[in-house]
C-alpha cells in the first residue's frame, strides 16, 4: 500500500511538473503564437498610421526599453515621442515588406519588421524612411502580448516643401 501511494505521488510529481516545460512547443503552438504576435504588430501599425499614440502605447510594457535615433530611451521618453508626433506630423503611411516572427518560449517571442514609412509634415515637408526596420521583443503578460523592447532603424530622407 505504502509503495502504491509513493508511486502515485511520483506520478503526480511528473505530471504536475510537465506543463512547466514551456520551451518545448509544437509547431501548432508556435504558429498560434506567431499569429497572435503578428496581430499585435498589425494593430499597433494601424494605430500608428492614425497617429493614435495612446492606442499604440497599450501594446507596450511600462518597463520597456527602446532604441530610437541610436539612443537608448525608456517608456516615458517613448510615450513623449508619441504624444508630440501629431503636433508636427499631418499623415503617416506604413507599407510592410516583410515581417518575421521567432517564438522563444510560450511567453516570449520577437519580430523583425521591414517596411517603408512615409510622413507628410504639417510644414509641408515629406519624410521617407525606406527601409525602416523594427525589432520588437514581446512578452506575454496575463493574456496580452506586450512589447518589452524595441529597436528601430532607418535613414530618413527629407523632401522640403515645394521641392521635387
Amino acid at each position, binding site marked *: 500500500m505504502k509503495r502504491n501511494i509513493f508511486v*502515485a505521488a511520483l506520478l*503526480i*510529481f511528473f505530471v504536475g511538473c510537465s506543463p512547466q*516545460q514551456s520551451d518545448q512547443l509544437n509547431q501548432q503552438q508556435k504558429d498560434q503564437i506567431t499569429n497572435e504576435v503578428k496581430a499585435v504588430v498589425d494593430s499597433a501599425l494601424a494605430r500608428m498610421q492614425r497617429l493614435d499614440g495612446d492606442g499604440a502605447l497599450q501594446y507596450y510594457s511600462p518597463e520597456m526599453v527602446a*532604441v530610437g535615433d541610436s539612443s537608448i530611451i525608456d517608456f516615458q521618453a517613448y510615450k513623449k515621442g508619441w504624444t508630440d508626433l501629431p503636433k508636427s506630423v499631418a499623415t503617416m503611411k506604413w507599407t510592410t515588406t516583410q515581417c518575421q516572427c521567432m517564438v*522563444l518560449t510560450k511567453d516570449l517571442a*520577437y519580430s523583425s519588421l521591414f517596411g517603408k514609412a512615409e510622413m507628410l509634415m504639417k510644414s509641408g515637408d515629406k519624410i521617407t524612411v525606406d527601409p525602416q526596420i523594427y525589432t520588437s521583443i514581446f512578452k506575454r503578460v496575463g493574456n496580452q502580448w506586450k512589447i518589452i*523592447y524595441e529597436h528601430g532603424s532607418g535613414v530618413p530622407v527629407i523632401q522640403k516643401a515645394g521641392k521635387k
Partner: protein
Amino acid sequence: MKRNTFVAALLLFIVGCTPQQSDQLTQQQKDQIKKEVKAAADSMMAKFERFDADGSIEYYWDSPDFTKLNVDGSQNDFQTQKKSMNNVKWLTAVKVPTVSEKITVVTKDVAICVREAKLEMSLKSGDRLTCDPFAYTLVFKNIGGQWKVILSHESGIINTEKAGKK
C-alpha cells in the same frame, strides 16, 4: 506511516517543481546573468576589434534562425555574418567604444544587451568610416551553458571621410 509517506511525496512534488519557475529570478541571479552577458558582449567586441573573426563568431548562434540587421537595412544570416567577419582585408583598424549600455534580463535564459557606441573604421585606401551615434542590440540566449547572440540589430548613419580630406 501512510500519512508520512504521502507528506514526503508531496514535499518531493513541491520541491521538484519549484526550480522550473525560471522567470522568478532573485536580484542576485539577475546580477549574475548581467555579469555573464556583459562579459560575453565585451569579449565578442574585443575579438572583433582584433580581427579575430573565428573568436568573435563563437558568440553567434550557428542556426538558420540567427538574424543580424545591419545599419544599411540589409540582413545577415549566420553564414553571411561569418563570411562578412572574415572579409576584413580592406580594413586596417576598427574600434567600437561603448558610450552607455543597458542589460535587461528577460528570463534565466534570455537577456538583451543594448549599447550606445561609436563606430570608427580605417580603410587601407586611407578613407575613414565613422558612425556616431551608433547603437546595437544583442539578444542573448543561454544555449548549453553559453551565452549566444540569437539576434542583432544595428543602427546609425555612416559617414565617409575621404583620404587626405578633413
